[in-house]
């Protein structure tokens, strides 16, 4: 009997006599580091790659259709249907849509947290980079959605339904943010340099300043038709006063973090559009250049054509964007696919060089064409023709065209800037810019088309109306569901109706 009691008490005592506090202190996350473990240099590369991936894959893909670069083979008639039909409702969907809004604000948050931490730690180089990159994203948000939250955005849960601000205001605030960022980088001391953690410029202050100025120039050029001349002049003066100038020859905004030939670790532009680890990417099978861009290169006897695309029986054949018919002449095997090393004796081509090629956020050629336009408009000193020719030469270089062929090319009456009537010079600059940005910075090309209306890209054959062109994206479903009042106040956001503020 006594023994039985002992058994009971012993058993019951086993687990009842634990220290309460220790017993419950098991809530430190063993699976992932929290903020306090992470130094800034472990966070900045994550944010920068997030930016570059989104820009070069998701945004670039949508814009490549709308900038007249890409179409699909007849086998893929049913693919990219929402892009071909300008179906804003489908694009804004959370389920099968294109989540540019969500991805961009998430990336903006990464920079916001870096910025806050950098301010705490007195690390101005980091906060400077974060500000410039935030400026980049806000400008693009406006280019795609017009009015967007700025001041009330990124405040954790302080503002659950951030107020939208006018696209123009956000543009101005973004430019100021970039200016601030540039100043912070400039003021950083040597021991505050992020070094390798800056996977774009490896801590080169001068290049960051040039990038900041070029980005501001891009923002100002964008407003060329928006009757905002006083503002433009004032901002141009600031750029001149700052004095670092713009990105020039060989100065790409690009990254090469150390891609390896493993799924998800390759250059994502390569992996998405050319080759996976074993086979051609789905996009490489389905996507083709439009007949329009082929005709453009052809018309100019452009050596880039052969570097970019495969010839079919000696000639180049594109597709019609939005062709609703399954047309045998536009089948995959009858049209020119994008050319890569596999089809070029292992040598790099116009767009595809290797799985670990640098990923381009902004090419030097874009900067040069921006300067050409600025010079053409008299905003900066210098000759538009010089910048224009440098831009073409840089594009040739990037697209693996022999430097020697530039002179012949440039001497053609259809190319030479001085050969154009003064009124047509801008048109020619934009045309060459369009040819240089091909598939690389397609959003810029689409924005130029919206701003200036050239080159005269044919409309999608599936456009809801012959004159209906994509002008913007609708606010995403997630935003309509979580911030309905604010997103509802912004007027008609239909893809072919609502205009971005600078699009007059």
């Amino acid at each position, binding site marked *: 009997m006594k023994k039985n009691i002992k058994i009971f008490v012993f058993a019951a005592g086993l687990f009842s006599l634990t220290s309460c506090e220790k017993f*419950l202190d098991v809530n430190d996350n063993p699976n992932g580091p929290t903020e306090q473990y992470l130094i800034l240099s472990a966070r900045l590369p994550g944010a920068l790659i997030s930016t570059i991936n989104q820009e070069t894959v998701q945004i670039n893909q949508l814009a490549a259709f709308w900038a007249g670069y890409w179409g699909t083979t007849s086998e893929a008639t049913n693919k990219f*249907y929402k892009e071909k039909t300008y179906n804003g409702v489908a694009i804004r969907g959370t389920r099968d849509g294109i989540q540019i809004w969500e991805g961009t604000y998430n990336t903006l948050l990464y920079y916001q947290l870096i910025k806050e931490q950098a301010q705490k730690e007195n690390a101005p180089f980091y906060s400077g980079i974060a500000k410039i990159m935030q400026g980049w994203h806000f400008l693009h948000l406006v280019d795609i959605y017009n009015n967007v939250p700025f001041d009330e955005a*990124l405040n954790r849960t302080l503002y659950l339904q*951030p107020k939208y601000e006018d696209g123009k205001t956000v543009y101005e605030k973004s430019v100021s943010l970039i200016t601030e960022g540039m100043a912070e980088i400039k003021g950083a001391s040597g021991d505050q340099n992020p070094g390798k953690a800056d996977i774009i410029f490896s801590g080169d202050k001068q290049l960051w300043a040039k990038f900041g100025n070029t980005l501001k120039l891009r923002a100002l050029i964008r407003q060329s038709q928006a009757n905002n001349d006083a503002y433009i002049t004032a901002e141009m003066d600031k750029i001149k006063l700052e004095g670092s100038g713009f990105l020039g020859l060989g100065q790409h905004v690009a990254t090469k973090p150390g891609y390896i030939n493993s799924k998800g670790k390759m250059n994502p532009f390569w992996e998405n559009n050319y080759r996976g680890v074993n086979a051609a990417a789905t996009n490489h099978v389905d996507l083709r250049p439009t007949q329009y861009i082929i005709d453009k290169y052809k018309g100019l006897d452009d050596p880039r054509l052969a570097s970019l695309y495969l010839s079919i029986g000696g000639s180049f054949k594109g597709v019609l964007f939005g062709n609703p018919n399954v047309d045998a002449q536009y089948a995959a095997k009858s049209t020119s696919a994008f050319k890569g090393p596999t089809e070029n004796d292992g040598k790099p081509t116009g767009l595809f060089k290797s799985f670990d090629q640098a990923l381009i956020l902004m090419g030097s050629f874009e900067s040069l064409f921006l300067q050409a336009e600025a010079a053409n408009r008299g905003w900066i000193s210098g000759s538009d023709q010089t910048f224009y020719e440098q831009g073409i030469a840089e594009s040739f270089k990037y697209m693996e065209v022999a430097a020697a062929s530039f002179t012949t090319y440039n001497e053609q009456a259809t190319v030479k800037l001085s050969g154009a009537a003064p009124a047509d010079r801008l048109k020619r600059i934009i045309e060459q810019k369009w040819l240089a940005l091909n598939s690389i910075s397609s959003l810029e090309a689409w924005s130029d088309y919206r701003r200036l209306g050239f080159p005269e890209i044919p409309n999608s054959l599936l456009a809801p109306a012959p004159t209906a062109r994509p002008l913007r994206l609708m606010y995403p479903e997630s935003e309509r569901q*979580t911030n309905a009042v604010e997103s509802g106040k912004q007027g008609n956001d239909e893809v072919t109706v609502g205009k971005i503020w600078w699009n007059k």
Partner: protein
Amino acid sequence: MNKKATLIILLLTISTGLFAQVRMISGKVIDQKTGVTLPGATVIRNANKEAVSTDASGKYTIYAATGDLLSFSYTGYSTVELTLTADKNTLNAYLDGSVNQLSEVEVTGALGIKRQARELGTSATLISNESLNQGKVLNPLQGLASKVAGLRINMNDATTGKTDQLVQIRLRGSRSFNDAKNNPIYVVDGVPVPDIGRLNPNDIENITVLKGANAAALYGSEGVNGALMITTKKGQRGRGTVNYANTTTFSNVYLLPPAQTQFGQGQNGVYAPTEYESWGPAFDGSTKDLGLKLPNGVQPTALFAAPSKDNRLDMFQTGRTLQNDLSFSGGDENSTYFFSVQNVNIKGVIPGDKSSRTGARFNGSRTFGKLNTSYNVNYISANRNTTPDGPWYSTYVQPANLDLKSLKNWRDPNSAANPLNYYTDATAAKNPFFLMDNNRNTADQQTINGKIQLDYDFTPWFSAIYRIGLYSTSEESRATTNKLASPSGNRNVNGSVNDGSNDFRRINSDLILNFKKDFGKFTNRLLVGQNIRMDDSKLISVGSANLLFPDLFNPGSRAGELDGAASITKYRALGTYFEYTAGYNNYLFFTLTGRNDMVSVLSKENRAYFYPGVSTSFVFTEGIKALKDNRVLSFGKVFASYNKTGNVTLDPYSLNNAYSQINGFPFGGLVGFTPNLTSPNPNIKPEFVKSYEVGTQLGFFNDRLNFEAAYVYSDSDGQIFDAPISSSTGYNTTIVNAGRLTNKIIELTLSGDVLRKDNFRWNLGFNFTHINNKVKTIFGGQEEFRMFRQAYAVVGQSYPLLKVSDYLRDEQGRVVVDSKGNTTTVADSAPLGTMVPPYQMGLSSVIHFKGISIGAQFDARLGGWLYSEVVPRMYTAGTHPATAEYGRQPFIFPNSVVNTGTADQPVYVQNTTVMSKGDKAFWDTQGKVQRNTAAKSDFFKLRELNINYALPKALLAKQKVIREASFGLVGTNLFIVRHKSNTYGDPESLYNQTDGYLSFRQIPPTRMFGFNLNVTF
């Protein structure tokens, strides 16, 4: 006789005695169900209260006169009254054991302690083994469907468990916005376990459903959604018995979303041999090329005509489930044992899908003087081998003339079914049979669940229980995709493997001290206890998405980097609780409970919380003299309770934001961390649910007719949930401590014997539940929150509310078309209604006649809405019937209007001239109008039907081996009536814990029929 003028449809044996002469009557008292005679049963002649007992063979003799009422009773059986007619000298009485006398029902209360139902101030429903197993279910939860008022069962997410369906259970609706956190606690023989889905339902003696926080107050947070108290079988003293049962069932898919059969593959009305979408010309019966030439030069062709049968059904096969059960039980004066083994073997409805489960249980007990020991061990080994969601997902977007049967021989390199030759290279429409064979998910899960319990009676007024339980699962999983090399990215398949290991261990310990002391008519009981909980889990996955060789699935044979992850989770909780019950004269009871919880998942400041509860019950048929021994109202009880329950639904490690490496990081030495996109909240506190309940339980005519009613009001405030927020905050969701949800619930249960005559008994049961829930407030003064896709929480509305995008309409609701006949999709989503049916009804019918029993369970749910994701895809692919309704020709959108005014001042007039194009672009847009793919989820179905025949005793009497034998037929979902707007699927299926949401990944529901055999030795 006048006393029988009642609700009951038919009277018992009726006769008017002409001769009041006393004579000797004899007969037997027999178990209605098994036909076994009952020794020691009581027979009373009501006229003079003379009582006799039946002998060892169940026989009795008694003197009675014609017209006398004889009542037959036996412990645990319902009493039967029979009137003696003039023509009879033998009278057999059939007693039913499944109906309990209301005044004597014993339920399993919180902590596994047996309680008299009469003293409960809360609702509890007892489900017997027989009722649970009526449909021969594999998962005990499925056996509860529609049998308990206030309890709702849904089939959850058929994507992960095609052979082993997950079940969602809700008691009295939802209290939390966090859908996954509305599960009740499962308690097996006193030990809380995380899952009972694989428990052998045949091992279950009964389940007591403690319906709400009130009944499960002692379980605290975990009991906030009610409790399922599962009591497994125990051996009986006496001769050992051996039971063998076999059930074989067959299942078939049904309720496929309809498809059009007029148009075949192509685009823009033109045939295209390599196109899978059905936007081609109308079927014309010709033979057309299908795809490209095969390697051997043959051009495959197909008949361009839709067959009369639905080709899509060829993707499926008849599923088959085999259940074999064997159990032994027995015992002596000091010990009992129960041992069972079960093997379940399932062949799924998708070819190649299979799973099996083998479980063994040993329950034993032994008494050593004042120490009672009992122990259970349950071991379950479950294997699964299924294909992921590709095949069906691919099938319903392909043309109606595609002959699926011909696609099975895909391994032949010269076959048109071979993935390298398949007619389309679209990744969304691959050969479903190739997908089935090429993509496999396997899992082997071992579960060990056991307990040791010690009960010690220190003194007559003080006893103690110590109970320790272990629940441990270990799952080894592997997902493989076989390599298929093709230079085209659309046909190439990278070989991949993902090996996973998922271990979970729970240790639960309870120490309970019981004090009991009676003072005259007053009884007092105090229970004090402590609960310790330790949950540990570890997840490991290792894999590669680029294997080098076909058929060799090892990450070692790979190119590129190894993929892998590991995570560890720990949860600790410590609870102390008490329950004090006072009783007066066994008819008035009062109970007070309190519990203090401490949990590891909250910050130190917030992790301890206390909450109380109170309840009372009054058996008025005993407490009020005037109602005593009433012939009509034989039992009556009213009860009421209030309690407040603290609840923490937060997962471990949610107080801080953890960073991780994504986007390919690390690249060698370069690291890049990004934060989680859920905004953390270190100050999360427990949420509190206040719950009020009043109810009554009435038994009429000696409990032949039972009625129960309960009204419940619950109010959950300060809810912890992961709220979606505008991405412009940077985060996509945030964990909040906000939001208030109330539930008003009415539950009614009526059951009674409609007919009870000699050996015939027909029992009907009906239950009704009305749930009226309202969102009172949500986070930060907001009016609404999106919970999951189209499911919202909106202030002032039921939760979850279905909101969908709709057409721009005029004030009369007519659709506005523009000058090109196109519709406009209004951005603001229109609220349609609740996604949880507010009205639920269950109807059961059980007929016993001699050895035959027929059980049927009907189920209806009304008033809810559902949304289907399948339909938009079928619109896009041109396989939905709506896309063919106007022959793909321009047509006038029915009941549409055009705007003849301006955009600002519209004037809408009936559209009689503007034609809509009716092409792919038009219908694709229509498919994206979510209102088109929403429907009312009302349904009525025959959930279970069971016809059983027990061999008569007489037949078995000739031998000594078999004691009982029966065989039967069983079927589930034999018919269903749905609301006419619902052509999408079974409204009961749900996706991602969201009621009323059908995903395009789910396969169609199945109906099942089969037979079973049961032998007792």
